[in-house]
C-alpha cells in the first residue's frame, strides 16, 4: 500500500503480536499510506499513526459508528453503488444519528475532532484496509464490534479488492486451520453445520457412523457441564486453559472436579499437572503436516528432527486412539489424513501435498487446477448483498467502581507467546523479557505510592495476582495492562468469564481491579493466591 491508501488498525498490537505484518504496515506508512490506530494503549504503531484514537476500552462500536456517521454526513459515500450492492443501508444510516461525534466523544473519551480526522482519512482514501484482533473481539460486545468494522467497510466500499477488507489477524499459528477442520461444536470441516442432514450424511457415509444432529458444547459450556456432573471425561489437546482461560479459579475447580482428564502436550503445563493421563506430543519441528495462516493459506510443516524420548507426532497418537476405540481406519502417514479430509471438504479439495511443494495455497480451492483464492467477496459479497447491521452501544460487563477503581486490559509482548510454555524456555526470548511488567500510569502510580519497578498486587472480584510495576504513559490514567505470559503473575486469575452472547468469547479486555504496593519482604511473586471459592457461572 502507498499514497492514497489507508491502513486502519483496531485493537491489534500488530508489531508485538504479528510482527511481520506490523512491518508491512510500517512499510505502507513509509510509502505514503495513512495510518489510523484505534487503541487505548500507546502501542508502537500509535507513535507512527496519522490519527491515533485512544478510546476508553469497550467503546469500539460507538466510535466506529461515529466515524461512519461523519463519513456519511460529509457526503463521502457513493450512495448509489452502496445502496445497489447492500441491504439494510437506509436503516443503518438512520441509526447513525444517535452516534454523533460529540456524544460519542464524551462516551469514548476520544476528541470529536479526532473522530472527524479519522473519518476524513478513510472517506478520502482510495482504499482502506481494516485490521483487528482480540482488542475488538474479547468484549461482551465483540460481535457488535466486528459488525461495526464490517458496516464501515461496506459503507466506504472497502471490500473485495486488493488493499481493502475486514481483516482479522489470527493469533495462533493454526487457529484458522482448527476452525476450518471442524474442531468446533457446531460445524464439520469447511464450516458446514452439524445440524444440516446433507452435511452430516456425507460424513456419516464416509465414516460409517451416525453423528449426533445437535451441536455440541463450547469450552465454557463444557466446563459448566463438568461442574453440573453432566460431563465426566475431558481431553485437553495442546492447550493450557489453567493460564489462558478467564477466571482461572473457576477453570481449576472444574478440572479438579472432572472424573477423568487427559492432557496431550509438550510440557507438564499447569493443566497437565491436573491430568489423570498425560500424553507427550511432538513439536512443529518433529512432525509433518500443514498449518493454515490468517490469510487462509495452507502451508506445509516438515519434520526436521526426531521426536524426543518416547514422544510421538500428535496425529499418530490420535490415529492410534481412534483404532483403540474400534475404528477401522489405518493411516500410513499424515498425507493419508489430509487426503481423507480434502475429499470431504469442498473448500480444500484442490489442495494436495504435491501442489504445496511449490508454496502455500489459499482456500477456497475446489479442484486441482484452481489457483486458490487470495481475496474473498470479489465483485460481490459471498452471501449476495452486503448486509448492514444497525447497532446499539452496551457498556462492558464490569466497570471500575469505588472498590475496584481501575480497568485491567490484557495482551502480549513481542518476546513471548500466550502462556509462554515455549518462549520462556528459549534463552534469547526469556532474557529480553524475564518477568511480568504491569503498565501503570504515572498519576495512578503516584496515587498509590508505587514507584517504577515496585512489586504490586492486583485484586479483582475473582482473585489476586502480583507483578512488577512499569510506570509508563503507554496506558492512560485509570487503565492498567498485563500480559498472560507469566505463570507466577497470572492475569487470568483476575479476568472475568463474562462473554459475548453470540460467540462465547470472554471479555478479557475489560475487568475492574484495585492495586497496591507490596514491600519486597511481604511476598515473592510466585504461586496463585486463591482468595475465595470461585463461582462456576459463566455469563
Amino acid at each position, binding site marked *: 500500500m502507498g499514497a492514497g491508501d489507508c491502513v486502519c488498525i483496531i485493537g491489534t498490537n500488530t508489531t508485538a503480536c504479528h510482527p511481520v505484518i506490523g512491518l508491512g504496515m510500517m512499510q505502507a506508512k513509509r510509502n505514503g499510506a495513512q495510518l489510523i490506530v484505534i487503541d487505548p494503549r500507546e502501542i508502537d504503531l500509535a507513535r507512527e499513526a496519522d490519527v491515533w484514537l485512544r478510546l476508553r476500552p469497550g467503546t469500539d462500536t460507538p466510535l466506529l459508528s461515529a466515524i461512519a456517521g461523519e463519513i456519511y454526513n460529509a457526503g463521502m459515500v457513493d450512495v448509489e453503488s452502496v445502496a445497489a450492492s447492500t441491504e439494510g443501508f437506509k436503516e443503518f444510516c438512520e441509526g447513525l444519528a444517535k452516534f454523533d461525534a460529540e456524544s460519542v466523544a464524551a462516551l469514548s473519551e476520544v476528541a470529536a475532532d479526532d473522530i472527524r480526522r479519522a473519518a476524513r482519512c478513510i472517506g478520502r482514501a482510495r482504499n482502506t484496509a481494516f485490521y483487528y484482533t482480540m482488542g475488538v473481539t474479547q468484549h461482551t460486545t465483540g460481535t457488535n464490534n466486528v459488525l461495526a468494522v464490517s458496516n464501515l467497510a461496506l459503507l466506504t466500499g472497502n471490500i473485495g479488492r486488493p488493499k481493502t477488507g475486514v481483516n482479522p489477524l489470527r493469533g495462533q499459528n493454526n487457529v484458522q486451520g482448527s476452525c476450518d477442520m471442524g474442531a*468446533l461444536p457446531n460445524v464439520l470441516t469447511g464450516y458446514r453445520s452439524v445440524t444440516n442432514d446433507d452435511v452430516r450424511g456425507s460424513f456419516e457415509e464416509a465414516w460409517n*457412523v451416525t453423528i449426533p444432529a445437535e451441536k455440541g*458444547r463450547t469450552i465454557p459450556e463444557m466446563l459448566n457441564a463438568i461442574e453440573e456432573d453432566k460431563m465426566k471425561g475431558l481431553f485437553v489437546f495442546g492447550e493450557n486453559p489453567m493460564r489462558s482461560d478467564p477466571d482461572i479459579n473457576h477453570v481449576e475447580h472444574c478440572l479438579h472436579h472432572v472424573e477423568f482428564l487427559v492432557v496431550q502436550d509438550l510440557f507438564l503445563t499447569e493443566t497437565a499437572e491436573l491430568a489423570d493421563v498425560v500424553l507427550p506430543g511432538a513439536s512443529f519441528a518433529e512432525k509433518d503436516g500443514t498449518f493454515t495462516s490468517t490469510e487462509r493459506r495452507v502451508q506445509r510443516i516438515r519434520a526436521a528432527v526426531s521426536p524426543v524420548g518416547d514422544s510421538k507426532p500428535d496425529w499418530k497418537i490420535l490415529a492410534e486412539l481412534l483404532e483403540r476405540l474400534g475404528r477401522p481406519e489405518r493411516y500410513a502417514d499424515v498425507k493419508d489424513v489430509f487426503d481423507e479430509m480434502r475429499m470431504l471438504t469442498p473448500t480444500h479439495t484442490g489442495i494436495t501435498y504435491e501442489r504445496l511443494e511449490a508454496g502455500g495455497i489459499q482456500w477456497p480451492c475446489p479442484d486441482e487446477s484452481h489457483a486458490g483464492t487470495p481475496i474473498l467477496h470479489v465483485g460481490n459479497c459471498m452471501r449476495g448483498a452486503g448486509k448492514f447491521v444497525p447497532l446499539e452501544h452496551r457498556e462492558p460487563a464490569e466497570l471500575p467502581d469505588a472498590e475496584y477503581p481501575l480497568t485491567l486490559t490484557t495482551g502480549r509482548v513481542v518476546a513471548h507467546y500466550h502462556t509462554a510454555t515455549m518462549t520462556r524456555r*528459549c534463552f534469547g526470548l526469556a532474557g529480553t523479557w524475564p518477568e511480568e511488567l504491569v503498565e501503570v500510569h504515572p498519576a495512578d502510580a503516584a496515587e498509590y505510592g508505587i514507584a517504577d519497578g515496585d512489586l504490586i498486587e492486583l485484586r479483582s472480584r475473582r482473585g489476586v495476582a502480583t507483578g512488577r510495576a512499569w510506570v509508563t504513559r503507554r496506558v492512560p490514567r485509570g487503565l492498567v495492562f498485563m500480559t498472560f505470559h507469566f505463570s507466577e503473575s497470572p492475569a487470568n486469575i483476575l479476568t472475568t468469564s463474562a462473554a459475548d452472547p453470540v460467540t462465547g468469547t470472554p471479555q478479557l479486555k475489560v475487568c475492574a481491579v484495585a492495586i497496591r504496593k507490596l514491600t519486597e519482604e511481604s511476598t515473592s511473586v510466585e504461586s496463585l493466591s486463591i482468595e475465595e471459592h470461585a463461582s462456576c457461572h459463566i455469563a
Partner: protein
Amino acid sequence: MQHTTTTCPYCGVGCSLSLAVDNDRIVSVSPGPEPSVNKGALCSKGRFGFDFVHHKDRLTTPLIRKDGVLVPASWDEALGLIASKFSEIASLYGADALGGFSSARCSNEENYLFQKLFRAGIGTNNVDHCARL
C-alpha cells in the same frame, strides 16, 4: 548441516522458516526460501524461539496418575486406559458426558483427527478449541 523448510509455530502470519539441523538438533533458524509471506523477514520469536524443542522439560513418556502422583507409563498402558475409561463413561452416562478441547497450535491433520475422534470414535459433537483466546 541439513536445512528443512517449514512454517513458524507462533502467530497466524505463517512465515516460512528454514531450520538448520546438525546432529538431530536445531542450531539456527533463518527465513525460508521464496515464495514466502515473510519475504526474508522474521521476528524475534521466529528467529530465536526454537530452544524449547530441545528443552530438558519436554515430556518424553506418557504419564498416568497412580496414588495421586503422575508416574511414567508405556504407550500401551496409557492409550489402553484412555480407551477403556472413555468407553466406560460413554456407556454409563452417554457419549455427551465426554468432550475435548482441540489445539490451535497443532496441524490441520491433527485437528481433523481430533474432531473425528469425538464425532466418529465417541459419538459426540462436544469438541471446541481456544479460538476465542
